[in-house]
């Protein structure tokens, strides 16, 4: 195979671009997956009061503003060395749980659902959320819309605004909730638990009840043995809002459990010449390339990773599903990446249960939701689990609290190496000796990255508004022999 260099001019921006290089025999020699990156956020933040960052950072991404708001809020707490009172923490986590329910629901029904409910080989025109609704029943669509509505309502009640919350400040929140609001939130949460159970049953009936799908999940195509990362509480149970970051090796053994402030001692970033985005890896293990195994510092931070990195779930029904998950899939950790969709539904149930737990805590309506910072601001790190991976915000300020430096590691960045590896493996398995590439094959490659729910949203904001995924297949001489696009334009 000839040596391949990708000229910077081919660094496409605004595209999820996949390049597949074949060898002389027509087999896959290599693949490159390029994610666009938004630039200059650090520069944009420098010189602003740090308490503005929870508002600014929720504009980084159109998909998970709530996650950025929370990571930023926790980082500003740390900058001011202030401990948020229990009610403040619970209110933030309650908002966050409702957001998780909305986000995971959307992903399953709009994105993963079509792959499984309709099937990877279904006609293009049916493989979307509308197809799912028509196949499974109109009432499903109504439930999805209702679930989103409830989630948005809770975010607005606590966060002051839908989608882009604005109430978190250093030391807590600017407002609490009334008993009347609490009751409403509790009722909506109970509904969300039923909906999560319903979604798991649907998955059970449609996916687990279909041998072809189970074989697809358990097959080698979407399997990788890497390290797994996730935030856990003091009992090593999954937590989205607070705790320590735990990393387990491919055998499930703990490698490290670190406090947010120690992230830089544990994570480093590898640079490749063909992409602007960096590849984070585990410092203690080292970067060994895009390879599986214990000696490779590649890690994954997804719903599946969070389950693998924890010892269980903190709520009873989610714990039952957690146990069933590992029993069905043959033990822990689970390396089959397609199981991430199932893991996401278990997290959906956990988020709904946690929503009700927090809404029924006697202190949730207390007015003790904010502590006034008294110490001089310096620097601080805030970590939350975004739906699509561990999210780290690190801010430095001067003594007035004016930002001097910002560093972020966002959910998708964690998974850049694993996504690239999954696409590579899917392509290798599906393209052999120059096999004619067909529509299902394109979708199978797409499925490889959809598992990770990667954040392209922020880069595809302008019209025409869709993510123009493009796959270019090149021969051994590097000449393009086929270009596949996600849509026909």
């Amino acid at each position, binding site marked *: 195979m000839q040596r391949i260099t990708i000229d910077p001019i081919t660094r496409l921006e*605004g595209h999820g671009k996949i390049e597949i290089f074949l060898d002389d025999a027509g087999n896959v020699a290599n693949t490159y997956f390029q994610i666009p990156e938004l*630039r200059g956020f650090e520069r944009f933040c420098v010189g602003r009061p740090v308490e503005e960052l929870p508002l600014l950072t929720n504009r980084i991404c*159109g998909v998970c503003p709530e996650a950025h708001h929370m990571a930023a809020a926790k980082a500003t707490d740390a900058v001011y060395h202030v401990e948020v009172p229990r009610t403040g923490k619970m209110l933030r986590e309650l908002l966050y749980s409702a957001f998780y329910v909305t986000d995971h629901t*959307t992903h399953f029904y709009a*994105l993963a659902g079509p792959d499984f409910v309709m099937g990877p080989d279904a006609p293009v025109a049916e493989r979307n959320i509308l197809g799912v*609704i028509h196949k499974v029943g109109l009432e499903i669509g109504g439930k999805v*819309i209702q679930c989103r509505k409830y989630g948005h309502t809770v975010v607005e009640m606590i966060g002051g605004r839908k*989608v882009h919350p604005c109430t978190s400040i250093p030391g807590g929140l600017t407002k609490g909730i009334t008993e009347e609001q609490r009751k409403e939130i509790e009722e909506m949460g109970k509904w969300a638990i039923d909906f999560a159970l319903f979604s798991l049953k649907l998955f059970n009936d449609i996916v687990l009840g279909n041998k072809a799908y189970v074989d697809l999940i358990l097959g080698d195509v979407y399997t990788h043995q890497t390290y797994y990362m996730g935030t856990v509480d003091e009992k090593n149970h999954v937590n989205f809002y607070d705790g320590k970051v735990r990393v387990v090796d491919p055998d499930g053994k703990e490698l490290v459990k670190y406090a947010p402030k120690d992230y830089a001692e544990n994570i480093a970033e590898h640079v490749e010449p063909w992409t602007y985005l960096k590849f984070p890896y585990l410092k203690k293990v080292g970067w060994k390339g895009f390879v599986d195994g214990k000696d490779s510092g590649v890690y994954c931070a997804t719903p599946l990773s969070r389950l693998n990195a924890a010892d269980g779930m903190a709520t009873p029904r989610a714990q039952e599903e957690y146990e069933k998950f590992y029993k069905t899939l043959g033990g822990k950790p689970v390396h089959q990446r397609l199981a991430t969709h199932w893991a996401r539904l278990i997290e959906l149930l956990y988020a709904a249960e946690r929503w009700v737990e927090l809404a029924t805590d006697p202190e949730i309506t207390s007015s003790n939701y904010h502590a006034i910072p008294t110490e001089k601001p310096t620097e601080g790190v805030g970590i939350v689990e975004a739906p699509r991976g561990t999210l780290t915000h690190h801010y430095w300020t001067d003594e007035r609290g004016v930002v001097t430096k910002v560093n972020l590691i966002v959910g998708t960045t964690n998974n850049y190496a694993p996504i690239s590896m999954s696409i590579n493996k899917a392509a290798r398995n599906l393209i052999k000796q120059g096999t004619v590439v067909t529509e299902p094959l394109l979708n199978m490659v797409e499925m490889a990255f*959809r598992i990770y729910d990667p954040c392209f949203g*922020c880069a595809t904001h302008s019209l025409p508004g869709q993510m123009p995924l493009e796959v270019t297949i090149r021969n051994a001489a590097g000449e393009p022999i086929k270009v596949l696009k996600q849509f026909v334009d």
Partner: protein
Amino acid sequence: MKTLVIGLGNPILGDDGVGWKVAEEVEKRLAGGGWQMADGNTPSAISHQLSATSHQPSAIEVDCLSLGGLSLMERLTGYERVILVDSMFTGKKPIGSVITFALDSLPDLTAGHSASAHDTSLRNALNVGRSMNLPLPTDDQVQVVAIEAQNVYDFSQELTPAVAAALPQAVDAVLDLLRTTV
């Protein structure tokens, strides 16, 4: 006719914020008075995202949002007519070009696949909403005013000069649409 004008985009991402700036100017012009709709009514109330929780039954509302797909569809519920103002990044038109079209004149490019990794296209989302019997405008009643952008990858609160220069034309395009019944 209950009408909603939405400036779409990210207000801190350079030219992507142009939709917000146009909508804000439209809001000022409507509030300035002396302005009538095609049906002879005078717009009575304007709402903005911060106060959008208590919608007044008004002829025209203006909002600024950073949403797409299902979330945007949910916001359109209850309106008969919607005008979306957004940046456009084709790389083929001169920077600052303003074009107007109805949503149904665009092919639904994402009917089969996902529009983004997280959501679906607005047209597909509208179809989902309609199959749930949500009161949504028809595709021909969702009009788009789009402005060709130059910088949508660098964080900034400023528009590039050619895009800023197109603001008056884009505002007029929205007001012209509001004067016309489709």
